[in-house]
């Protein structure tokens, strides 16, 4: 049931206006990248991208394409603003987070432009809530310059196989070491914690392996505290693609199917902690 918001007094349409029958389609994706309070929203005719960064080392992006929305209109080429993601999520889930079948929160989102707050109209069971969230100057975002031509190693795994591994990562280890190789151990996740080291090996011929394209043996270490939040995205996803480039930058792309079966993506980019070219076993 689309909500109709009053048009702005000046008669100009909102810079960004969108309607969504089920706010969960947005909130669940945003939660998957919620490891910092602030996020940058970037909207184009194609859809909405929400970016969260930390320590200048990690960046997560949630993509909600225009097709997911019942209505999605952007008046300029692109609209960008910074917003408090914690507050945004609290508002989107203002009617509660339990997902009872049949009860959905409808959302209408409007943004008038630079300096104006983001307006949210949320409705569930006849009850309407109006939220106005202040927006800020957008931050400059990192550009990992990750394009397919620079990719050295790439694998696509079914998320089922990784979920447990990530949930049970030894957090006493400072780093998560990822080894990708055309030879054994093919794909290995390692931690070095207080009790000792742990290695998780996925063979290339495993049923979980959807695609395996490794050209070079690479071993890279990433700060585990930075990667741990990606577990949320992993939990929601059905498939994940893991790619590394020449510099050891890591790209994790998660394919997420929402309640209505529509596909969305979340991606994480991470800088390596140290440069290790030899596999350390």
């Amino acid at each position, binding site marked *: 049931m689309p909500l109709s918001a009053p048009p702005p007094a000046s008669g100009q349409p909102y810079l960004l206006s969108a309607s969504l029958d089920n706010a969960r389609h947005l909130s669940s994706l945003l939660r998957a990248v919620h490891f910092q309070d602030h996020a940058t929203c970037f909207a184009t005719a194609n859809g909405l991208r929400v970016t969260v960064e930390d320590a200048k080392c990690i960046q997560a992006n949630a993509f909600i394409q225009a097709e997911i929305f019942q209505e999605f209109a952007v008046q300029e080429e692109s609209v960008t603003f910074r917003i408090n993601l914690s507050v945004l999520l609290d508002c989107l889930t203002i009617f509660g987070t339990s997902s009872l079948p049949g009860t959905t929160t409808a959302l209408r989102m409007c943004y008038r432009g630079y300096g104006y707050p983001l307006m949210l109209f949320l409705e569930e069971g006849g009850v309407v809530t109006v939220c106005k969230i202040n927006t800020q100057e957008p931050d400059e975002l990192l550009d990992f310059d990750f394009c397919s031509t620079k990719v050295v190693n790439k694998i696509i795994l079914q998320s089922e196989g990784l979920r447990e*591994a990530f949930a049970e990562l030894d957090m006493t280890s400072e780093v998560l070491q990822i080894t990708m190789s055309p030879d054994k151990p093919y794909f290995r996740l390692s931690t070095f914690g207080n009790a000792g080291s742990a*290695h998780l*090996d996925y*063979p290339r011929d*495993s049923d*979980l392996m959807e695609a395996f394209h490794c050209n070079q043996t690479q071993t890279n270490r990433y700060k585990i505290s930075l990667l741990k939040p990606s577990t949320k995205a992993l939990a929601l996803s059905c498939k994940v693609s893991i790619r590394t480039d020449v510099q050891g930058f890591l790209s994790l792309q998660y394919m997420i199917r929402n309640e209505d079966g529509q596909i969305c993506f979340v991606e994480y980019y991470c800088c390596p902690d140290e440069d290790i070219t030899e596999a350390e076993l």
Partner: protein
Amino acid sequence: LQSFLSVFRSLPSLEKTVGKCLILLKPQASRLVVQLHCKYGVTKTHNLAFQECERLQAVFDTQRCASSLRAPARVLAEAVVHFPQTLAEVTLGAGPGGKISLQNYVEDEAERSKMMVTELCLAEDEFQTVAVAPGSCITFCLKEFRGLLTFAEASNLPLTIHYDVPGRPVIFTLDDAVLEVHLVLATLSDTESNSQPPTANGVSHLPAPSDDFADDLESYMIAMETSAYEEGPGVPPSPTFPLRTPRPAESDPEQEEEEEEEGAVPGTPPHKKFRSLFFGSVLTPGGPGLAPTQEVLAEDSDGEY
């Protein structure tokens, strides 16, 4: 042990995904390797660091124990459930008429009158085997016993209790085709002989305990009501135990242990306390205040002393 346990932390997921588990020891690298072979060809390898420590060998012989009891773990587990979780020690005794009783142990006689005393009696037929010296009783640490019971109940194994006189260790054993478990606990030594009922409190007018438990209980209740006004605070009479006034023994191993704890020599294995798991009362030979009647039950393997 914590690091080893953390490998098997999530039992439900282990059951679903793990096919086989390989455990190897790499002494040169000081690593214990636990390798789990999981579904989809995934291999999880844990390299746990360990340190060599001195080996202690407990000296005990179940054959030399005067008494033994055997029961399904469930029976004993259901019995200990009645005692508070914080209770440290429990007294197991063989009373007249074949009753096996469990009672919470209260150290101080003065405390006894202020504390709740719980006594649970099990009939002989609840046990699979009963071969006890009549009137025998021992006091041991309940916490460790509970731990063993949890394991035994889960594996559905009968538990055998071998014990001797107070002060000698009690040995709990579980026997199975695949494994053998021995839990050796120290027991409180009691220098007073159990066979002499003390004459304190003038309770000789109490009815003699009979074989029938119901009668015992009734006469006990009557005795409680009548003696309460006549005597001062004293040990409440128990129908199954011959009345005695437990006093902390002078050469109490617990006290000894605590003294020795302070005089620990660096580089030797730590003195095990009274409540130690698996090893009975360990007393370093030549330690201070060693009572002549105490024998060393577990020697240092390097025999330096």
